[in-house]
């Protein structure tokens, strides 16, 4: 797939060789907005915590030690493996993965539906998908909270219809957090998939049907491989921000159980005031994400090499 893209891109002679001076803005942006903050956090994660927030410029591994070892309430017991943060990470990864899966299950048919409409109605559907996202994420999360609370419209409606006898407790549960994540990031799934389905040539489906492929075969053997890059892009765009989300866990989950995002937020903004630990947790998260993306990129490269 990558090979194909590269070859289509390299065709144009007018734009092909990008001169170094033209790259300067790119490097400035990457350097200033990407590399510099990450390096700063990396440095902070190895500094000594200052009492009540801030750092002392002395090298220390205390932040990583705190992440890995449990030394008891007073910090002087023999170290044991600290499961807390591992549990928080695993919980966050599972929630982000489920959110991604839900977005995919709803997002793919939605994108497919939109892409198969007439060009005039497509833009209307796309517009409708993005309309709620013109509203601030905080407001949307709060309104979700109003919808699902014990005596909110959802429970009232279900009770009115006689489906349930008494309100289901939805608010302050993992389910609510899941719902919030799904709702927050759905368009990030729909839009990239739409972009790739839209370019899909439906003559291919017809050709497959002529060769006696049934609908499922067409989906698995023809459509999915071709729109795969869009699906991957959508999954990454949903998974990564879900992993660091803190609004949904705070507002819908009752701020009771940390997720990665709220754990890190608490280190900088909350009572804990432990900057090096917040930086270390971010670094560990970043490393995990980079490793996962790296492995994926390697596998893709090997696959396209094999295909060639």
């Amino acid at each position, binding site marked *: 797939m990558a090979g194909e893209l590269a070859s289509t891109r390299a065709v144009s002679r007018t734009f092909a060789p990008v001169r170094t001076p033209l790259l300067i803005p790119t490097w400035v942006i990457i350097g200033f907005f990407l590399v510099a903050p990450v390096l700063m956090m990396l440095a902070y994660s190895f500094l000594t915590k200052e009492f009540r927030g801030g750092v002392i410029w002395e090298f220390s591994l205390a932040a990583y030690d705190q992440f890995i070892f449990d030394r008891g309430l007073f910090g002087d017991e023999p170290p044991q493996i600290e499961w807390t943060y591992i549990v928080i990470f695993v919980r966050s990864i599972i929630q982000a993965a489920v959110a991604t899966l839900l977005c995919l299950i709803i997002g793919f048919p939605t994108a497919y539906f939109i892409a198969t409409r007439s060009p005039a109605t497509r833009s209307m559907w796309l517009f409708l998908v993005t309309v709620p996202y013109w509203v601030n994420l905080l407001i949307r999360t709060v309104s979700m909270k109003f919808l699902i609370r014990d005596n909110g419209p959802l429970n009232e409606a279900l009770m009115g219809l006689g489906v349930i006898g008494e309100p289901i407790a939805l608010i302050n549960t993992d389910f609510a957090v899941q719902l919030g994540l799904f709702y927050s990031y759905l368009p990030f799934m729909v839009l990239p998939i739409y972009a790739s389905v839209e370019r899909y040539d439906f003559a291919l489906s017809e050709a497959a049907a002529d060769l006696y492929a049934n609908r499922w075969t067409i989906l698995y053997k023809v459509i999915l491989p071709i729109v795969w890059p869009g699906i991957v892009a959508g999954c990454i765009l949903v998974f990564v921000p879900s992993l660091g989300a803190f609004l949904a866990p705070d507002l819908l989950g009752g701020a*009771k159980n940390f997720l990665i995002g709220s754990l890190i937020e*608490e280190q900088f903004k909350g*009572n804990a005031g432990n900057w090096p630990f917040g930086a270390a947790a971010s670094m560990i998260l970043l490393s995990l994400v980079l490793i996962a993306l790296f492995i994926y990129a390697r596998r893709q490269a090997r696959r396209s090499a094999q295909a060639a």
Partner: protein
Amino acid sequence: MRTLLKAGIAALALTFVAGAAQAQEKLSIYHWFEYIPQELLDKFAAETGIEVTMDTFDSNEAMLASLKAGKLGSYDVAVPGDYMVEIMIGEGMLDTIAEGELANRGNIEPQWVDVPFDPGRMHSIPYQWGSTSFSVNRDVYQGDINDTSIVYDPPDELKGKINVLDSQGEVMLLAALHLGIPQCSNDREQLKQLDALLQAAKPHWASFNSDGAKDVLVSGDAAVGMIWNGFGAKARAEGANIEYAYPRQGYVVWMDNVVLLKDAPNRASAIKFMDFLLEPENIAAVTNFARYAAGVEGVTPHLDPELASQPESVPPADAPAGTFVAVCDQATQEVYDTMWTRLKK
């Protein structure tokens, strides 16, 4: 689309021009959420011509963290609670108000002039004071509520229906009062007890929420809500059938104060604002809005008469006195921080 864009740019340009033309005095406030009526800010702006901007926070600790993270120097005044004033003085984050600089300093009630958290009131003026305990929904629970076990060792009817403030100082102090141990104790057994109490209580708590502390009571999401007395009064006024508790083990008293921040970009405006808030009529408007009590003389004629009989402000005769949150030494505070992290994980 293009016309829209053009209109947007034109509007933006106009704003800049207007801003440059006025070049007026400014005041930047860092305040608690929902704690000052907009009309009062408008009145200040109208009287002085100073343009007011305000950001809000939802706990003393969050305010401290944000100021330490680089916001110091962008705000003129903030409104920390008593113990946080002491911490901020210790951190060197407050500027000194010179003798005679505040014209209305004499309006401060005598009992609030020389306070332990700011001896001689060098850096702060009183804003509001009140108490922290909890309100209980009387439709859900009819028993005795004047006991800290309602929050820390709740009866079955209330389990899973409790909201606590996302505020370390107050949660820890109420817990210490529940156990009958001194604040900031560095006795290991007592600290372990405190930790065990919080760990045992957490499964019964539904949420940690400060800025929603009123709403969860009004909506019925929570049947017990740890809350500041005036905020509890507002929840009751909004229709919640709740009663504010005065636990026999004790409860928290606090005073919020307007402090002059170090490196204030508009120091003169800050002083004017403090003087403005020391006018009985103005600070009474805050009290009428927030339902607490002012620390300024001569406010009574301006107060809503209902405040005098508001149950959240008038402890029953047999209620104990409240306790201020103490500032712990570093070693103890670090154990508290560890406990708090363990509690919320």
